[in-house]
């Protein structure tokens, strides 16, 4: 049995089915256009016709269609070629249209951007002919009206032409316009690489920056003026500072002189009241003794203040000559503290000196003694009866500390810096009871500065205060115990 009729039958059935399915396919624009659909249907119809002819022929029904079968076969290949080429051209056309539309949209967008730009943008040649200008640039171009390219206004022509010739360039130039006014322009130019007529074209962006340049010039002028003013004021301040320094020195000198002049009569007052109180000139009654005692005490108090003022003046004037010697620190401190112990005892205050750590340092004995004396006296002065004042000598690695600690009234944090200034004292209720000019700590600070010592304070109101003198060891002098020295 031949398979030919069977093959023809399969071909006929499949092709008819394909034709039916294709005719049922909706002819939408993208995947199946109407032209493609019906052209393909025509090609399938030709094959159906050939298959039908073959089936009828091999089934022995008729050969009538055989005469037309050749025409169908001849038509098939060109029809397929037509379908394929037609489809290809259609798709290319659609792609070209889409690209054109895209280009048109991008061009519109670009033109919007260029026209919205605050700068003038144009395409010009070296002769000043303008081939394109955005909205802003049209203020500077003239349109002849006869189809010729636009031209720049005469005032701008040379500067743009120069920028085109020198492109790429970025310059700021001043140019005289036709009306005589001088304008500043910031110009950037870039040569066009593909010019259609092969001439020297460039994209030029420029902006009138006259106002900005004027503002910058004004700013520069103002800056120079400001600099001059600052120089002038600095000179004035320096002069004022010199005058103040001179006035301060004069004041210190005056104060020292006045204090010095006070000392002689004060010594007379104190000396004669001592004589009177010693009853060398005759006996005194109780009232006279009491009143003379007031005079004597007030005189001594005033003398102390005067001597403090003189000392401060000496230190501030830098006249306190430093005389260094190897000093056994514990001994020096004890010598100063012991006499004050009597005063402390009178006031009911316990004064102790923990100075066993015998150590030798280079020090000015007198000045160091005065520092310790002022600190201890202050502590005793501002500690209530029944309180404790302790003087400690602490040896550390790089320094020796002399600490004067009391459990007195303490000092508020806001006062801790102020009390080191001359004539400053902490306000307290019993101030009248505590005599003094507020010079002790100031003298301590200045003397410490003179000797290269540090002076610190730790205090809490109501809990007492601890003043610490930091005496650094000299680099070539390690702390030496007296025992070791011996």
């Amino acid at each position, binding site marked *: 049995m031949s398979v*030919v009729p069977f*093959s023809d039958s*399969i*071909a006929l059935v499949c092709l008819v089915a394909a034709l039916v399915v294709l005719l049922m396919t909706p002819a939408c624009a993208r995947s*199946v256009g109407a032209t493609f659909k019906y052209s393909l249907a025509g090609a*399938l119809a030709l*094959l159906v016709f050939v298959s039908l002819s*073959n089936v009828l022929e091999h089934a022995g029904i008729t050969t009538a269609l055989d005469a037309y079968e050749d025409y169908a076969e001849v038509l098939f290949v060109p029809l397929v070629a037509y379908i394929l080429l037609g489809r290809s051209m259609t798709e290319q056309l659609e792609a070209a249209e889409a690209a054109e539309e895209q280009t048109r949209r991008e061009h519109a967008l670009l033109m919007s951007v260029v026209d919205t730009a605050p700068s003038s943008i144009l395409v010009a040649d070296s002769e000043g002919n303008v081939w394109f200008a955005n909205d802003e640039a049209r203020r500077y171009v003239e349109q002849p009206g006869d189809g010729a390219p636009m031209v720049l206004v005469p005032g701008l022509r040379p500067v743009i032409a120069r920028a085109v010739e020198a492109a790429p360039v970025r310059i700021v130039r001043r140019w005289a316009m036709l009306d005589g006014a001088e304008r500043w322009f910031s110009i950037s130019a870039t040569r066009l690489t593909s010019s259609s007529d092969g001439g020297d074209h460039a994209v030029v962006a420029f902006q009138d920056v006259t106002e900005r340049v004027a503002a910058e010039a004004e700013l520069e002028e103002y800056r120079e003026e400001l600099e001059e003013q600052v120089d002038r004021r600095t000179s004035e301040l320096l002069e004022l500072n010199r005058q103040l320094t001179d006035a301060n020195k004069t004041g210190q000198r005056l104060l020292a002189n006045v204090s010095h002049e006070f000392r002689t009569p004060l010594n007379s007052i104190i000396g004669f009241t001592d004589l009177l109180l010693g009853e060398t000139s005759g006996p005194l009654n109780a009232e006279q003794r009491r009143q003379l005692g007031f005079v004597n005490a007030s005189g001594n108090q005033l003398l102390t203040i005067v001597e403090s003022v003189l000392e401060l003046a000496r230190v501030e004037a830098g006249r306190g000559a430093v005389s260094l010697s190897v000093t056994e620190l514990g001994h020096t401190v004890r010598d100063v503290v012991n006499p004050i112990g009597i005063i402390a005892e009178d006031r009911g205050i316990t004064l102790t000196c923990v100075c066993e750590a015998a150590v030798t340092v280079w020090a000015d004995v007198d000045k160091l003694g005065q520092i310790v004396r002022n600190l201890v006296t202050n502590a005793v002065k501002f500690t209530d009866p029944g309180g404790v004042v302790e003087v400690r000598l602490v040896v550390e690695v790089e320094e020796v500390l002399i600490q004067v600690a009391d459990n007195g009234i303490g000092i508020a944090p806001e006062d801790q810096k102020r009390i080191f200034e001359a004539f400053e004292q902490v306000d307290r209720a019993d101030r009248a009871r505590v005599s003094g000019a507020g010079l002790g700590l100031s003298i301590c600070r200045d003397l410490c500065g003179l000797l290269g010592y540090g002076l610190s304070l730790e205090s809490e109101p109501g809990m007492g205060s601890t003043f610490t003198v930091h005496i650094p060891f000299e680099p070539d002098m390690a702390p030496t115990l007296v025992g070791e020295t011996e």
Partner: protein
Amino acid sequence: MYQESEIVDLLMVLFLTPIMVVAYRVVTIRGKRWFAAAYLMTATGYVLTVLEGYVAAGVLNTLEHATYAFAGVLCLVGVTHVFRAARTETEGATL
């Protein structure tokens, strides 16, 4: 022996197929491989038609009709792809 129309068919295939190959590469038809295979089957049938006039007439004739059967099946598959693509696109546009 051959008929004149069979020679014309063969010449058409020989001259137009290269042009169609170029177009085939750029077009975007869903299931185009199936259509290309169907076309090649048909073109092969044309060649076999001419050859059967010279050698192995029986076998080549059988093969010729078999290629037509294959071409029919391949066309049906290709059209089915086109149908599905069009349906999908139409439904997408409707939605």
